[in-house]
């Protein structure tokens, strides 16, 4: 039933935003941000179950929890950046959206560097 709630919030927000956009565009942007945050918060609690399953699977596969943590951090960075970039684009601020995406890419790469080093070391060890 959660999807009904989310759909209702989104539909109401969309209708209100369309009406507001003609009279007061800044308020329409604020409304879209608010609706986005509310939907994000509604779904946030459900992610815990998925993360638990991922943890169990990684334990079963003997994958270090550090790796899984890094991966989840990267996914979180990507989602937040995507979310903010879309809001910026809705507000006709494409430049900001690009900058946010750039920052997210840099952060993802920074998190990925130690993993790359680890893979490289392991591969080099394979060579006799």
């Amino acid at each position, binding site marked *: 039933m959660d999807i009904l709630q989310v759909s209702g919030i989104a539909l109401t927000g969309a209708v209100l935003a369309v009406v507001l956009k003609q009279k007061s565009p800044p308020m329409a942007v604020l409304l879209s941000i608010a609706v986005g945050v509310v939907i994000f918060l509604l779904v946030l609690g459900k992610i815990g179950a998925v993360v638990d399953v991922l943890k169990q*699977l990684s334990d079963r596969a003997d994958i270090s929890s550090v790796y899984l943590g890094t991966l989840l951090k990267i996914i979180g960075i990507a989602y937040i*950046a995507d979310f903010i970039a879309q809001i910026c684009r809705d507000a006709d601020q494409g430049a900001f959206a690009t900058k946010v995406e750039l920052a997210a890419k840099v952060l993802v790469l920074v998190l990925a560097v130690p993993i790359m080093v680890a893979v490289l070391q392991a591969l080099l060890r394979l060579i006799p």
Partner: protein
Amino acid sequence: MDVLRELIQTIIVIVVLAVLVEMLLPGGDMRRYVKMVMGLLIIMAVMQAAAGVIHSDLVRDIPAVTAVDSGAPPLDDIMAAGQGLAREDRELAVQQYSKALSGQVLALARMNGELQVLDARVTVDENSAIEEINIVFAAADGDNTPSSQSAGDGARQADQDAGGDLGVQPVVVDIKGGDVAGKESPAPAVTPEQERAAAGQAAMVAEFYNLRRDQVKYEFRDL
């Protein structure tokens, strides 16, 4: 055979995990980047599983993946430094509080003009509670007793001036201190009136600060 079966099981779990994680990936431009990192992680996981099966140290000494912050000191050092600073500040505050209380006690003790108060020291514990108060009185004020005399000197003086103004033998404090104490710093001569007045002042201070009587001590010292 068991080893191979275990390896295949692990790889299947890794593949399922990868598919699950891929479903979580956001759309848009960021997807490519996250997929790249995820691919690396899958490579690592498979290699780790393979290394575990063949008991190899292939991926044993992997660098810490969370050590991406550079320049900042470790958290333990920061916490230890913070605790040290807090301890120093607390000690400083206790010192200042003790100093202020000493001044207060000194002023309080000087309100009664019977005795000359030289010094007051307040010992405070870590919880800012008063542990002990030491009040130093002048041994002789020049009117009632022979001034600036030690106990031994006072006794000699009394012998010489037998039948003096007071006609009372000065209290010889050597009885308490013994010979050794007497050699180093002879106790000052204190009259019973002074002793009584000092005890009264100490009791007054103890009552003022709501302390036990034995927490307020006093001593006499030559001027």
